[in-house]
């Protein structure tokens, strides 16, 4: 797992090289940050000023752009929809992936390897291939334009990666622990619930983070499934808003800033866990 704050010994370095290193890093950091900063600052300008002065700070800081949007209900309702979809996707993914991973890691049953490989196959499949038949299926199930029409396929598509990660972590728990619990008369369900799960909270939170971020940012599936504005998740709401206001960039920039804020704040608050979570699949895979 990548740890963003890992301690490393500091060696003695040539000061000129340190300076060159710093300059390169600052240059790249500027390239990364300038689009984000111009977006946030641009939201505070009037359309006229944005056109003539896109770089600099605004002459008049139009905080009202932000307040207008924050006091309306539109923003909150689409963020609420995204939160609802994300929470249920995380809950169901954990509820379905964790028991399956326990079975793959510690139980022996017919076709174990085959079923595991079958699930893992899903990691290389492009989701877009399934999207058209999935749309027809969701329509026939009567789930079109509902949040459950997004949650269920999202859970299904996240299973492969989640099961792979959790199974590998569960395997680290020694078989002897399972064996002695069996000898003490505990059933498999009890072992899973009282021993395996409490020992696996780090990997379960990692899976929860990956699943939530993927759901929060998902666009293609909600785009195909949802068609009334009050059900939209925030990426759909953002695109609709952009379509509605066309070239009124300050309005759109305000909307972008406010909708990416939850992700940015969550990242700043828990960057260590988020980086570890999002790169975990790669290192453990």
């Amino acid at each position, binding site marked *: 797992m*990548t740890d963003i704050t890992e301690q490393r010994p500091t060696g003695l370095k040539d000061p000129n090289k340190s300076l060159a290193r710093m300059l390169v890093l600052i240059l790249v950091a500027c390239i990364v940050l300038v689009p984000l900063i111009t977006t946030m600052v641009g939201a505070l300008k009037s359309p006229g000023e944005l056109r003539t002065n896109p770089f600099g700070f605004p002459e008049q800081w139009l905080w009202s752009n932000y307040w207008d949007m924050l006091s309306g209900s539109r923003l909150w309702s689409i963020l609420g929809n995204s939160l609802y979809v994300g929470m249920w996707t995380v809950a169901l993914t954990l509820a379905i992936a964790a028991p399956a991973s326990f079975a793959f890691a510690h139980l022996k049953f017919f076709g174990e390897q085959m079923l595991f490989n*079958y699930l893992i196959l899903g990691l290389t499949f492009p989701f877009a291939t399934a999207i058209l038949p999935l749309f027809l299926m969701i329509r026939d199930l009567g789930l079109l334009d509902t949040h459950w029409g997004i949650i269920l396929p999202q859970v299904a*598509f996240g299973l492969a990666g989640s099961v792979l990660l959790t199974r590998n972590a569960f395997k680290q728990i020694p078989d002897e622990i399972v064996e002695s619990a069996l000898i003490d008369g505990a059933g*498999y369900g009890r072992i899973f619930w009282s021993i395996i799960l409490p020992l696996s909270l780090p990997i379960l939170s990692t899976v929860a983070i990956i699943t939530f971020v993927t759901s929060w940012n998902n666009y293609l599936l909600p785009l195909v499934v949802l068609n009334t504005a009050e059900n939209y998740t925030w990426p759909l709401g953002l695109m609709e808003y952009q379509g509605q206001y066309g070239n009124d960039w300050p309005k759109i920039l305000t909307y972008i800033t406010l909708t990416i804020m939850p992700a940015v704040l969550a990242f700043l608050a828990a960057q260590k866990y988020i980086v570890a979570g999002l790169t975990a699949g790669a290192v453990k895979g």
Partner: protein
Amino acid sequence: MATSASKLQYVASKRQMRGWKTAIIFVSPAIALFTLFIILPIIEAAGYSVFNWNGLGLPSPDRFVGTDNFERLARNKVFARAFNNNMLLIAASLFVQLPIALAMAALLAERRLGTITFRMIFFLPFILADIAAGLIWRFIFDGNNGLVSHASQAMGGDAIFLLADREYAFVAVLVAVVWKYFGFHMMLYIAGMQAIDKSLYEAASIDGANAWHRFRYVTLPGIMPTIRLSVFFSLLGALQLFDLVVPLTGGNPLNKTHTMVSFLYYFGIGRMKVGFGAATGVALFIICVVVAFSYKKWVMKDD
């Protein structure tokens, strides 16, 4: 006695089936959901791809068109351009994004002044949704309001309307992709570098290796497995890019900036041409699976 007896019994059962009844209950929901929402639709896509069908009712036998949809796809100029764009994405990932990520990782692998701040800044774009990142870059490249155009004018040049340029609009997508994803690959490389045995560096220094030699002969071989994995992610990600294209160019101008998935969306789903869209999906599926399996077989065979 009772303990050792049940232990013997347990050891015997371990070789055969152990807790298989529990396993059935624990595994079935995962297998069922995965089959219903992923595998079944992919099989259906293969089925629909040989019909000319608009998705209403059932595909009737007289709508059977054989390989017609695939032939139309192969002749389609927009799809050819989209495929070409996916190849450009792969090239940008390998020849621009990978070197930048590697260089930044080399500068940030050891903890020194400001290291953590820079790692966070470089990783930040990765956590943004593609939709938001795409819109931000649409603003940056906007000919009237955007940064690029104003910078050009400030230096005495003309306003630049890159997103309206028939030949080069896709460059905007490439820039946005590198901007958004290099930090993720950088974090992978940092993790790989931290796993390299420190004594190798000491031994190399004693043998008189300079910084470049240490990078070339210790770091690079040490993180090769990580690089192969990061290339694997880049390949599959580049073949499936969609979210970033929609807000940035929407496939415009003149359908020059589609990717295979945005082509599938606009020309298959958007127009409810189920058969043609399914054929596009099947083509995408075959390309992804062939790339993934041959890469795993030939390149990642030792990992």
